[in-house]
């Protein structure tokens, strides 16, 4: 265990007096800080830096010395211990912030109190959490005591050890007594409104600084002595490099352990009672977390920076077989830096003592609030005594601290020499059992007390069986066959190979099976049990922590108490001063008279919250029940609280969606309305145009026929002309009616199209032929500027002919150029056949462009008498082309006349050609 004979150079006297002076300094610092905090001048004490340093109580002597030892044995495997907490703090926004908020609002005093509060202020849950914490972390405290004793031997060369000498010669006893005194003096000065201990926080922050500087000093020494360059810290000589390469490579098969330790240390930074105490209970201001989010990881970064160099130095400079756990001390000694070794010893002493102090206070709070006090209250009630409680509570705390130190010392004295070293991670695995209930309680409203309780007990039992038991058993002495063969020879129950899980990493093995039991039961039982009213209330308050306000819960309670009883209770538990202040604060903002006989529900809740800050939620609740009558929780109110926030959110979401929908509908309605109006107008227009168009031929038919009737002596030649007019106008009428019917038919879809694969060019030729007579008659030249190669499309032959004829005859009809001509082009563009008909006529004005494809809308400027026709030609053409899957457009910006272009998709069979 010691670094070797003769290596302890510092005299016992020097080491003891420096340590003593250091402890005195701690006492002074704690005292001064307490005074300052009480004087409302916290200054530096309230800074986030002090808060962050206090969290660094995480780095115990196990990490101070053990990290180098672990690195010497397993290379970078020591790192996840620091990286896990880094991840948690970097992600403070997710979990830590909520924990801190809830703890502040509900005056949480410990992790047991937190879990118990969440699950309906359950007393039994608090007891179980407390017992798990005590069993899981007392060995860890023992480990710190052992570290101090061992390093004392190493640094002084004294021979006194735990196993050999009498207990009074054991350093550990004296250290334990000193630390117990410290914890009692500064941890139980008063029963506070909440568990804030400024003196202790200041002292451990200081100790964190000391241990960081100590490790870094040793690290710098190593870098200076060995040099960073070739053959230095990271590049030892070639022959050593191969041998030492495990220090900086990732060993095959170590992935599971790496992740397990990463997870365990991440959970430990929240679940270890002392970490919960400093990081969550002691936090003064939520904003401090934002600083700790990067400063604490930075601290871990710095404290681990020199671990590998120190390990290397130890292995290079010290004889083989030296204990790597002591390299932090023995390397300075070996290089003749005794004072640095002393400083390193103080650093290790700091990391051990700060852990011991905080852990013992955290555990004593839990032990007294959740285990001893409920019994005490029960006894008092049975005896009917009503004396001062405040002092008794403090004494219970003090005794609890002594109990914990005694337990740790006993464990330290009786445990096997090697058994303590592994306890760090075993401890982490124990408190990791809190994690499902803790995190589940933050986010899962349906989790119940019975689920949490059974899960926790089962997980703890599996942990004890698979991890604690094998660590305690000395293979050669106790039950030698249990580990190898399983209990009673049942091999699948072997503690380290449960259900046949052979060759698993022991830590992962334990975590895996304990979590299977823990989470399985937690979720399963929660699903099949119904939470009680108080549980439902608490679960709502916890899961919705950021939307609830302190005092929301008061609404849910229906209970009454006389103001006198309430005041009496407060005075007994918290003392007269605190009680007066609570009542004065409560009535300060209200008009209700202080002398009122009945205490307002809000006052009862206020008192309960204050009591909870001192004795824990479960005990506070029990105390309050003692003085209230007709206590019940109104289910309606709970449901109100449960649902109010959710309803507000849902309601406003719904409103938002609805108003969006309404807006959308209104817009659509507006559009539809406009369209209706337009259609209505079109219909009117259509009717009037139809009447007009019908009226013109009818009028001439009527006039001519009346003329023929009135005069018998109409000359033969004239009669024939008149009858010709009647026939022509009748034809025009029937053409018009045909067109109207045709259009209506297409609009209704009753006209059938005879679609077949046809050559568009041939149709075009036909159409040109059909209007040839008409064009010649009007003296219009027709230019066919297209290739005769066939272009196939799936169309109705007759209908497309109709369209082309219409376009061509329009071009002839409206062309008033002195040298009229029409040009027809047809080309294939990609998968579309484009046929354009252009003329050199007057063209179509911009304002008419929109109209020409609507019914009866001959160009407005078109007043020429020679123009005849129904005015439906283009409309029908457009309908036809659209039914055929194409488009018809009037081109813009043409240099001459009007250019109509028809585009028809080519048929698939013709795609390649």
């Amino acid at each position, binding site marked *: 265990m010691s670094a070797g004979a003769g290596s302890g150079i510092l005299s016992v006297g020097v080491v003891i007096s420096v340590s003593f002076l250091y402890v005195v300094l701690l006492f002074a610092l704690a005292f001064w800080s307490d005074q300052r905090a009480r004087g409302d001048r916290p200054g530096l004490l309230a800074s986030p830096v002090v808060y962050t340093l206090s969290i660094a109580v995480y780095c115990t002597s196990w990490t101070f010395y053990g990290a180098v030892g672990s690195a010497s044995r397993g290379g970078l495997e020591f*790192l996840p211990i620091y990286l896990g907490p880094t991840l948690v*703090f970097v992600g*403070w*926004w*997710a979990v830590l912030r909520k924990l801190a908020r809830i703890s502040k609002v509900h005056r949480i005093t410990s992790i047991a109190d937190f879990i118990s509060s969440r699950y309906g202020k359950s007393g039994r849950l608090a007891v179980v959490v407390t017992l798990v914490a005590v069993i899981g972390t007392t060995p860890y405290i023992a480990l710190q005591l052992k570290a101090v004793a061992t390093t004392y031997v190493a640094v002084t060369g004294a021979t006194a050890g735990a196993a050999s000498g009498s207990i009074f010669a054991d350093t550990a006893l004296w250290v334990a007594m000193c630390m117990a005194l410290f914890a009692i003096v500064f941890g139980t000065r008063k029963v506070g409104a909440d568990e804030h201990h400024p003196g202790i926080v200041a002292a451990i922050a200081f100790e964190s600084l000391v241990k960081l500087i100590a490790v870094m000093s040793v690290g710098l020494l190593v870098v200076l002595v060995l040099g960073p360059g070739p053959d230095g810290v990271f590049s030892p000589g070639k022959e050593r490099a191969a041998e030492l390469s495990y220090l*900086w*490579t990732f060993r095959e098969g*170590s*992935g599971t352990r790496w992740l397990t330790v990463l997870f365990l240390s991440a959970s430990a930074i929240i679940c270890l009672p002392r970490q919960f105490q400093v990081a969550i209970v002691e936090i003064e201001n939520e904003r401090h977390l934002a600083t700790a989010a*990067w400063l604490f990881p930075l601290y871990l970064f710095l404290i681990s920076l020199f671990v590998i160099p120190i390990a290397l130095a130890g292995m290079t400079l010290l004889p083989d077989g030296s204990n790597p756990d002591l390299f932090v001390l023995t390397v300075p000694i070996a290089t003749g830096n005794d004072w640095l070794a002393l400083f390193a010893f103080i650093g290790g002493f700091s990391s051990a003592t700060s852990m011991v102090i905080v852990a013992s206070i955290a555990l004593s709070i839990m032990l007294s609030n959740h285990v001893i006090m409920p019994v005490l209250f029960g006894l008092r009630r049975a005896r009917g005594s009503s004396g001062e409680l405040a002092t008794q509570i403090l004494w219970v705390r003090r005794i609890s601290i002594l109990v914990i130190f005694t337990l740790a010392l006993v464990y330290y004295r009786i445990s096997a020499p090697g058994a303590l070293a592994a306890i760090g991670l075993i401890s982490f695995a124990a408190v990791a059992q809190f994690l499902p209930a803790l995190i589940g309680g933050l986010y899962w409203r349906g989790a119940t007390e019975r689920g949490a309780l059974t899960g926790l007990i089962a997980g703890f039992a599996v942990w004890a069986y698979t991890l604690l038991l094998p660590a305690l058993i000395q293979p050669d002495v106790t039950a030698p066959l249990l580990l190898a063969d399983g209990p009673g020879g049942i091999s699948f129950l072997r503690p380290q190979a449960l259900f046949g899980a052979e060759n698993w990493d022991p830590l992962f093995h334990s975590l895996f099976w304990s979590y299977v039991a823990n989470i399985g039961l937690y979720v399963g039982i929660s699903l099949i049990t119904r939470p009680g009213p108080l549980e439902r209330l608490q679960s709502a308050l916890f899961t919705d922590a950021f939307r609830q306000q302190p005092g929301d819960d008061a609404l849910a309670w229906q209970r009454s108490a006389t103001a006198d009883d309430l005041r009496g209770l407060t005075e007994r538990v918290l003392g007269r001063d605190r009680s007066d202040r609570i009542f004065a604060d409560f009535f300060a903002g209200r008009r209700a008279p202080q002398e009122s006989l009945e205490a307002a529900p809000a006052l009862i809740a206020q008192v309960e919250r204050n009591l909870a800050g001192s004795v824990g939620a479960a005990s506070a609740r029990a105390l309050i029940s003692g003085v209230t009558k007709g206590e019940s929780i109104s289910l309606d109110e709970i449901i109100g609280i449960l649902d109010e926030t959710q309803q507000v959110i849902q309601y406003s979401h719904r409103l938002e969606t609805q108003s969006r929908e309404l807006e959308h509908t209104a817009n659509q309605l507006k559009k539809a309305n406009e369209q209706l109006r337009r259609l209505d107008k079109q219909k009117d227009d259509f009717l009037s145009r139809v009447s007009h168009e019908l009226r013109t031929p009818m009028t001439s038919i009527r006039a001519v026929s009346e003329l023929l009737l009135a005069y018998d002596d109409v000359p033969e030649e004239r009669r024939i002309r008149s009858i010709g007019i009647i026939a022509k106008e009748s034809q025009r009428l029937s053409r018009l009616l045909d067109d109207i019917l045709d259009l209506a038919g297409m609009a209704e879809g009753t006209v059938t199209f005879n679609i077949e694969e046809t050559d568009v060019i041939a149709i075009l030729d036909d159409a040109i032929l059909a209007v040839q007579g008409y064009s010649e008659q009007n003296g219009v030249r027709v230019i066919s500027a297209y290739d005769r190669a066939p272009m196939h499309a799936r169309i109705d032959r007759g209908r497309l002919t109709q369209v082309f004829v219409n376009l061509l005859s329009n071009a002839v009809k409206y062309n008033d150029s002195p040298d009229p001509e029409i040009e027809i082009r047809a080309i294939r563009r990609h998968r579309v056949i484009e046929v354009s008909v252009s003329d050199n006529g007057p063209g179509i004005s911009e304002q008419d462009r929109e109209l020409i494809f609507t019914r009866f809308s001959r160009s407005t400027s078109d007043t020429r008498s020679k123009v005849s026709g129904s005015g439906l030609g283009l409309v029908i053409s457009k309908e036809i082309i659209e039914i055929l899957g194409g488009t018809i457009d009037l081109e813009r910006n043409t240099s001459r006349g009007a250019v109509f272009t028809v585009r028809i998709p080519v048929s698939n069979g013709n795609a390649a050609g």
Partner: protein
Amino acid sequence: MRNQKLRDAALLLPLVGTFLLLPTILRLMSGGRWFADLPSLPAFLYMAWLALIVGAGLLSRLLLKVEAGSERKKAATGDPDGKTQL
């Protein structure tokens, strides 16, 4: 909107950290030598660590600013309970 992104980033940062620390990644980084002949795995680990610290520092500052902003808004809209904050 930007605030929401910021909060998402705050939740994402530890996930990124976890990803960087996965054994798969570490095996990739193991065995080589970087920079001044430093072993690559520790160099990678400490650099990733430092990057997380810097990331957390920047995000925390921004988040505090955003929170302070929304507190002010809450006070200004006369909603002291902040219950309607969505």
